[in-house]
């Protein structure tokens, strides 16, 4: 329903016009789609499987990228290899896949959490509302990165290191998800408060519809527009947060590297002049985040200039 509504608004507004006339956004969309395709088709497209030790050979280690024309460059490894002989291009494709999976799942998690808390907060009101909103206030005092780091640290305190590496993916999704719920909750709560006082909701109450049903049937569709805009913008942020956590060495382990992990591993050997190990994942991450942000910005302006 919300989607149809969104599309109707899209057709009504100048959205399609502004999309076509904004070459930057078209390019950003194409680039994003390309990166998504590269990432999710990695098992088919990637020339190597970099995380299978059996396929690695140290004699392939530290090959420079083909385009440099340096000695040892090999077309089998177009972007060179790292010190363990892993193909940089394949690592990037698999790494991007992990980054995107984390980014998207974390965004969905924070969206669901935020919507749920926002609905409860707005509909129940009173002490529950006050508690959730104060919690939001306190959390907003800290940057999301700090919250995610803290959550990660707490989990590490609760379980063993080995166990942590195994479930690192879920920990990081949870940590990022928990650091981004506030914006959704506030938006949804605001909308619930507006809708709650409207007559059709009062009427639905009087005829004895359950509050849960009222919220889902009547209130939710009204907030899906802004919520989806926030989500689009947050995917970029979530990917960025994951990359930063992994870069700091508290995200995904080196056995399961995302783009951020690859950059961290690359930076460790940067001073020895093997720039390609860090630059290519870095450029990929930069392009991905800029493209997603451009799309998010445009979507926000096109759908609702007031959100600015």
């Amino acid at each position: 329903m919300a989607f149809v509504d969104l599309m109707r608004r899209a057709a009504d507004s100048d959205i399609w016009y502004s999309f076509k006339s904004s070459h930057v956004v078209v390019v950003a969309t194409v680039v994003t789609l390309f990166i998504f395709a590269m990432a999710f088709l990695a098992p088919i497209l990637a020339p190597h499987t970099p995380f299978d030790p059996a396929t690695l050979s140290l004699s392939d280690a530290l090959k420079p990228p083909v385009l440099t024309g340096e000695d040892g460059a090999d077309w089998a490894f177009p972007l060179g290899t790292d010190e363990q002989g892993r193909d940089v291009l394949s690592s990037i494709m698999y790494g991007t896949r992990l980054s995107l999976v984390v980014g998207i799942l974390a965004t969905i998690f924070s969206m669901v959490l935020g919507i749920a808390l926002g609905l409860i907060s707005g509909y129940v009101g009173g002490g529950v509302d006050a508690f959730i909103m104060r919690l939001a206030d306190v959390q907003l005092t800290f940057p999301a990165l700090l919250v995610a780091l803290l959550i990660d640290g707490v989990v590490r305190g609760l379980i063993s290191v080995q166990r942590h590496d195994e479930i690192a993916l879920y920990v990081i999704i949870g940590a990022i998800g928990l650091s981004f719920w506030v914006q959704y909750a506030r938006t949804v709560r605001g909308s619930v408060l507006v809708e709650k006082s409207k007559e059709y909701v009062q009427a639905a109450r009087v005829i004895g519809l359950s509050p849960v049903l009222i919220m889902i049937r009547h209130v939710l569709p009204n907030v899906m527009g802004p919520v989806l805009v926030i989500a689009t913008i947050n995917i970029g942020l979530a990917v960025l947060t994951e990359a930063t956590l992994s870069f700091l060495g508290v995200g995904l382990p080196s056995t399961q590297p995302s783009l951020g992990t690859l950059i961290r591993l690359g930076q460790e050997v940067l001073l020895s002049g093997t720039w390609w190990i860090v630059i290519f994942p870095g450029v990929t991450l930069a392009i991905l985040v800029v493209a997603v942000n451009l799309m998010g910005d445009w979507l926000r302006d096109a759908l609702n200039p007031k959100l600015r």
Partner: protein
Amino acid sequence: MLAFILRRLAQSIAVLLAVGLVAFALFHYIGDPINAMVGQDTSMQEREELREKLGLNDPAPLQFARFIVNSVQGKFGLSYRTSEPVGRMILERLPATLELAFCAAVFAMGVGVPMGVWTGLYPRHWTSRFLQAASLIGVSLPTFLIGILLIMIFAVILGLLPSFGRGNTVQLGWWTSGFFTFSGLKALILPSITLGLFQLTLIMRLVRSEMLEVMRTDYIKFARARGLSNRAVNFGHALKNTLVPVITIAGLQLGAIIAFSIVTETVFSWPGMGQLFVQSVQFADIPVMAAYLLLVAFFFVVINLVVDLLYYAVDPRLRGGMTTASARGH
């Protein structure tokens, strides 16, 4: 005025207590402080005695009160990782972080505000379009990538600036400063730019949009209609009106700078609190995490308070209570 400050103070203390509660909960329920203090071969009985002595068997509210009192005095217990007093560990690393954050903030404001004013006044000029586009990339790029890029260019390729550490420092009492040696100042350049760049672009974009907004207001139109010079209109009237939101965001960003120094310090092996925090997260060193959390919360609260006071200084509408009521109606 006084009532306002008191109210804000009370709110600040409430936030600090809430954060303190979180920190205490971490302390109390995750990991075992005894493990950090004793050897493997300590008997259960000895451990239990130590527990009793440290008051770890007291009721939770009492422990929380004790935790708060200790925190205020800077006593955060011993690190699980190094068994050093956490307070001292943090104090040793505080100057490095604060000097870095200070330079980054000066860089962000000193460059960001003029750029924002320029792009706000001349939005159609090609330099403004360029800066606006560049700033979008600046906002999007992760801090650590910028740092790595700067290291690539200025340390690896050009060999001009150091890529890690603080250089030589000077001891001023307990404070170690990098401001007084050439190598210390050189070492500050890349990390400060890395840390400040995001805030710079944010402040620039904010000043720009505020400037555009203010330039459309009636009082700017009226100021022009009064024949005031461009300088008087742009800087006398417009800029001051953009200050209120800019102060808010800049204040919040100062907090963000301290938090994001975590990343910059890791990139540049900067021996500050951020690096300490990352290490403590990796090792689940709960006392250090809790102390860092409290300290950062304290900084944030102080910054917010200063921001509120600055509002007061800038905006007369918040000050004059006497005839404000009569402004409505006749």
